[in-house]
């Protein structure tokens, strides 16, 4: 394989696809950590010229981790629709980019092509996209899903109500949950990250959230984001589970560090279909994030964008209700500052949509990254304009359990009013019935959690 170009009279040659893919990325501290980042800005530009000429079939033949060594590769490769693939295999990455952006290419056409793609093709075209390319490209691709309500319809923006509490106090969680509901947060899911991952703690929170859903007849689903094995135990024991959650990684080795495998996810998915209480048909919820494979030393030498794309291919196997990157959670060693976090958020949302999964985003940062609330508000506006399915709703964006900052109950409300977006239709109807929203605008009753003490 010869991968070479001249740029401003200087020759740049890349030894293999792995290095070319790494060097074509926007600057990221994680790629520098992995030793695959471009040494100079000009080298990055040169890598992109070369990458733009690579045909898609070459990317299929060179997955980040070989087929016989990695079950994530096998899941993605085995799911490729050969008829679709044969139509596009000779496109170069540059041509693929232009096809995606063309006015004659519709969202439906992209959804079909998705079935012929592998993660490496999706990652490659993402590297050639500017930020606005990523927004515009993603905005064409609507991927909706149904559980107890419908997420991801055009013109909607949903919010995960995330009432985390440092010690899982049911009263504290209930208070936060009510606050969020009063702002219209919760149409994606009522999803708690438990501080205590044990069966008894998780089942107690499932019971409590289910009780709120039943009492107020909320068209939504609950989820307690413990390790999937704990949720499986809860399902088997009869706890009311809405969505089944797991964090996933882009390689088999990475998933092993999360204590999971494809077999285990298959089993969880089967149990969900057997035991989850909502209508369905989608019951799975995954979280991802650039850098997770590298942090588990499970990246096989590849860049974090490509490893992230592989998550989405794995997620697609389960026809999930929602998937989101937790984009700034991992810390500055992978995404150093606001610029890198914003870029990664746009990339991940685009890649998820291009894969064909109902993608949202936990637009967030940690206190040791060089970012602040303004940076995350900017990212949320960009993603909402790009058609992102949902964001997190946390009291003032400050998570009291996970010690990170993300989007708030207020942010989703403001984004809806700013960009003329609505909650999921069933949920909007519910809000209207309680007098919390009228014509897409919060009413005077909204923002008062004590409203929910009445029943």
């Amino acid at each position, binding site marked *: 394989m010869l991968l070479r170009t001249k740029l401003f009279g200087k020759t740049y040659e890349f030894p293999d696809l792995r290095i070319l893919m790494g060097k074509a990325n926007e600057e990221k501290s994680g790629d520098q*950590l992995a030793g695959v980042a471009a040494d100079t800005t000009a080298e990055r530009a040169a890598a992109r010229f070369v990458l733009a000429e690579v045909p898609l079939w070459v990317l299929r033949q060179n997955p980040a981790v070989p087929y016989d060594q990695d079950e994530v590769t096998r899941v993605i490769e085995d799911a490729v629709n050969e008829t679709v693939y044969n139509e596009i295999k000779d496109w170069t990455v540059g041509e693929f980019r232009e096809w995606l952006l063309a006015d004659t290419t519709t969202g439906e056409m992209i959804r079909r092509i998705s079935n012929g793609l592998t993660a490496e093709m999706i990652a490659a075209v993402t590297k050639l996209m500017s930020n606005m390319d990523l927004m515009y490209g993603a905005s064409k691709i609507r991927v909706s899903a149904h559980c107890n309500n419908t997420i991801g319809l055009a013109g909607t923006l949903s919010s995960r109500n995330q*009432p*985390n*509490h*440092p*010690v899982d*106090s049911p*009263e*504290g*969680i*209930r*208070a*936060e949950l009510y*606050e969020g509901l009063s702002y219209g947060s919760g149409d994606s899911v009522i999803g708690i990250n438990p*501080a205590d991952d044990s069966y008894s703690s998780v089942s107690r929170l499932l019971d409590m959230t289910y009780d709120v859903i039943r009492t107020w007849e909320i068209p939504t689903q609950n989820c307690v984001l413990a*390790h999937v*094995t*704990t949720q499986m*135990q809860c399902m088997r024991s009869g706890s009311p589970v809405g969505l089944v959650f797991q964090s996933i990684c882009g390689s088999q080795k990475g998933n*092993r560090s*999360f*204590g999971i495998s494809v077999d285990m996810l298959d089993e969880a998915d089967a149990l969900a279909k057997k035991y989850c209480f909502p209508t369905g048909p989608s019951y799975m919820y995954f979280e991802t994030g650039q850098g997770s494979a590298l*942090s*588990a030393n499970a990246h096989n030498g590849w860049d974090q964008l490509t490893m992230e794309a592989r998550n989405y291919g794995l997620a697609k196997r389960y026809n999930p209700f929602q998937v989101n990157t937790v984009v700034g959670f991992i*810390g*500055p*060693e992978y995404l*150093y500052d606001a610029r890198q976090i914003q870029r990664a958020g746009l990339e991940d949302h685009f890649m998820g949509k291009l894969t064909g999964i109902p993608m949202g985003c936990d637009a967030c940062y*940690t*206190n*040791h990254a060089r970012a*602040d*609330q303004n940076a995350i508000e900017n990212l949320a506006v960009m993603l909402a304009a790009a058609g992102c399915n949902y964001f997190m709703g*946390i*009291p*003032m*964006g*400050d*998570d*009291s*359990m996970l*010690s*990170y*900052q993300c989007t*708030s109950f*207020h942010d989703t*409300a*403001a984004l809806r*009013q700013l960009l003329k977006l609505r909650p999921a239709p069933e949920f909007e109807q519910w809000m209207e019935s309680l007098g919390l929203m009228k014509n897409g605008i*919060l*009413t*005077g009753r*909204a*923002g*008062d*959690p*004590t*409203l929910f*003490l*009445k029943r």
Partner: protein
Amino acid sequence: MDEARLNAIVDAVVRELLALQPEQSAPPRAETPPAPQPQAAPQVQPAPAQPTRAAAFPAPVLAPLPAAPSAKPAQPAPPSGELRIDLPDPTEAQRRVQPGVARPVNPQALESMIASTTARIGVGRAGPRYRTTAQLLLQADHAVTQDALMRNVDPKLLDEFGLFTVQTRVTGGKQEYLLRPDLGRSLNDDSRRIIAEKCARGANLQVCVGDGLSAAAIEANLRQIFPVIRQGAQSAGLALGTPFYIQYCRVGVLNDIGELLNPDVVVLLIGERPGLGRAESMSAYMAFRPKAGDNDADRNVICNIFEGGGTNPLEAGAVVIQMAQNMIRHQASGVKLKLVGQ
């Protein structure tokens, strides 16, 4: 909206408030002083608060009404013409819990809801955005956390518990520590030698302390948790290894410690990533016979250890002992422990 309709709404709201709190006369809130409007002021614009009743109620802020941007008349200038702003500290505990919701259905319940969590609830809104004080407090908390991030643990505290200090492979200070987690997961050669010299091998429980992302977390919790672990181990008949402190420490260093000292269980007390305005949260990561190649799935963690809202450090110390006994009984930790424990 015409004036008559506006007045009707205001009257209705005031009636509702009267019905809710017949006797209460709450002190004026620092963050939302009642609009000092003269009683007879002509209502040229829709005014947000009704001055005649304001004294009897916590100043209702009628967020959904179209508030006049400058409804407050200019304060009369003191004779000198000098502006004086002298504010109390908005970060004091009792100021943090001031409700910000306009006309809550149940004001008393709102206060107990706010008290039930450290999350920022009951904050109210300005349209779909935050109230001013709440927003400024959020920014202040972020500011103080940023400033605190780069500190080291007070050496006097380490001396108190006889902890000697070793270091990971990080050589370039906190900045390199942040950017190179790989270096923070392994001990440097000097440290390996020192540990081999000074520490007992093959203990039942090896305690280590690491700065992690918050020196303040170690300073806030070590005095409570350490004695509980020491005494707990004694009563449980667990032989304790020689404890030490690791600078520029990441959780993965557990594997090196396991390989060097062969203990049954290692517990690493390490500073968590600071939350907004709170840097004192600590974690206890534990592993059964950790070795090279082990990862998070092989470990257990007790997180959010801090006084006043988190897992109390005294309690956490007791959990560490129980967990260690459990790991030794089942010869496992992490996901494996969960599976055999079921």
